[in-house]
């Protein structure tokens, strides 16, 4: 069996008293799109930056393309491309210049005109970096990550802070890369991003991988329950919602009661009866089939954006 193209084994990293990584392990096969999903501060960026050779782990080992990122120097960097969580370039650098500049550092170079076309930056080729919108800057960062035609591309929160339309544009680009059978490791705290783009996902929380699998596997791991979200006029009587028929789990997030039910119709009937008995009112009710978010809540007890 071929060696995984990315291998992280028992990675540890601390910043002073803060333990960012506490034994993170995972591997990525060639051509796979692998996602690290977790809330801010979970340790995703630290893990990726160790794999990019930007940080040295306190413990454990990392290998990318068969090379040690910390010790393989230029040879390693020739094989990878990366979009950092926030990329910055000199304000007065033109788009085309940025691509050509970075392309010149590598022995293997992609056609920069082709990259401009592919990332819809042709019209902006002579624009200064400071004149680009957030989405254009991110497209440029993606194009720069490909100037050396890398085997592995790291994308650290590639859509963070972008508006939904731009986010969809970036998804299209990543899906195009995926079709090109390039190995991608992306970090995200957007559930839909992980579900839409990744072949496999590792859920990271508090510096640990707490679950790993395909999005489908993870969704099924959440007991196959339906999520019912209700808003009530007044808080319910103690734990009355958790005792409703079919309910396996009940939590409250900002006034929204999230019930996980294996028998949704019976749960709803029971809910209505219970509210009548409590002289309470239903303000809204939404039902969701099992999602990655449910898996995340079940595993961590928290929502991603908390």
């Amino acid at each position, binding site marked *: 069996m071929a060696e995984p193209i990315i291998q992280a084994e028992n990675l540890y990293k601390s910043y002073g008293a803060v333990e960012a990584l506490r034994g993170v392990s995972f591997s990525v096969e060639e051509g796979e799109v692998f996602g690290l999903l977790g809330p801010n501060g979970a340790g995703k960026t630290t893990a990726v930056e160790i794999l*990019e050779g*930007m940080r040295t782990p306190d413990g454990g080992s990392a290998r990318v393309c068969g090379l040690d990122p910390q010790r393989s*120097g*230029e040879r390693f*960097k*020739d094989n*990878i491309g*990366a979009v*950092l969580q*926030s*990329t*910055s*370039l*000199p304000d*007065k*650098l033109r788009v085309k*210049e940025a691509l050509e*500049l*970075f392309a*010149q*550092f*590598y022995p293997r170079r992609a056609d920069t005109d082709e990259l401009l076309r592919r990332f819809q930056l042709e019209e902006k080729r002579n624009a200064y970096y400071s004149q680009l919108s957030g989405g254009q800057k991110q497209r440029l960062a993606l194009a*720069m990550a490909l100037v050396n035609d890398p085997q592995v591309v790291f994308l650290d929160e590639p859509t963070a802070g972008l508006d939904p339309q731009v986010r969809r544009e970036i998804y299209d680009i990543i899906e195009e890369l995926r079709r090109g059978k390039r190995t991608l490791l992306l970090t995200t705290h957007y559930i839909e991003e992980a579900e839409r783009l990744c072949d496999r996902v590792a859920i990271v929380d508090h510096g640990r991988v707490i679950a790993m699998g395909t999005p489908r596997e993870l969704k099924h791991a959440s007991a196959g329950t339906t999520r019912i979200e209700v808003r009530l006029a007044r808080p319910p009587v103690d734990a009355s919602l958790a005792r409703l028929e079919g309910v396996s789990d009940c939590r409250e997030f900002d006034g929204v009661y999230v019930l996980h039910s294996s028998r949704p119709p019976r749960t709803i009937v029971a809910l209505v009866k219970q509210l009548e008995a409590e002289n309470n009112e239903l303000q809204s009710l939404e039902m969701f089939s099992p999602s990655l978010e449910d898996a995340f809540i079940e595993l961590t007890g928290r929502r991603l954006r908390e």
Partner: protein
Amino acid sequence: MRHTWTLAKIRIRLAMRNRTFFFFTLAMPLAFLFFFVFLFGKGQPGMIAYVLGSVLSLTVMGSFWGLSVQLVTFREQGILRRFRLAPVGAGAMLASGILTNYILALPTVAIEILLCRWAFHMQTWGNVWAILLLVSIGSAAFSAFGLIVASVTNTMQETQIINQLIWMCFLLLSGATIPLAGFSHWIQRASLFLPATYLAAGLQGATTRTATMGEIATDVVALTIGFLVAFEISRQLFRWEPEAKVPGRAKLWVLAALIPFLVFGVWQNVWGHRPTIVSRFDMLSRGSGHAQTTPPH
């Protein structure tokens, strides 16, 4: 070396798009030139060469200021991080800054020399080869001193404060602006420990042809050693990451960059003939020595 040149080319382009660059690299040195000519050279054509030496020193010393600020800005804005992902080493990043500064200083140096010769009637071209050599090695040395400042400071605020302090010493105590003859004896002796004094003395000696080849060689050697030590220290202390703070003890490395000038300072104070530096201004202002090749002892 290839990466150094690639980076230098783009840095030159970026500088040419920056109005502040033109102010500090062209307008300010020329303003100094006109001011000094008015102050010292009016009615004394023999003094123009001396003024040129001083202004060339200020132009070259300016490398120190710009590079440290640029490097700290790049680090604070996370620009260096992006370069770190590429196969570019700290050496190439730093060397490109030095090369850029040198290339960009050359047109100003040429304009200053031509203005002095043709507009202000400087009597000779001076020792052109010595001027070129001192401008080249001086630019490299002062850029490297700037890189050290960038390496040991954590924020732009710190960089500006340290730059101001060092710059004022260079400006006032090197003989580049105020002739050393105007200072007390102990300040004159203390000035021999400053790198800027070797640059100013060398360039004033080369433009006025009052320095021996031995003296110019001393200045060149002092600046060359200073450059090599400063460059290596800044390479060792180089940080790509905005959040990477330099440990307190690492700042002591800066003192190592001063060692060559400590040695040269002692040597010059004990065995050197550097009173020439002090007396050159008096000598020229009396109109007695602008074309001398041998200094008075």
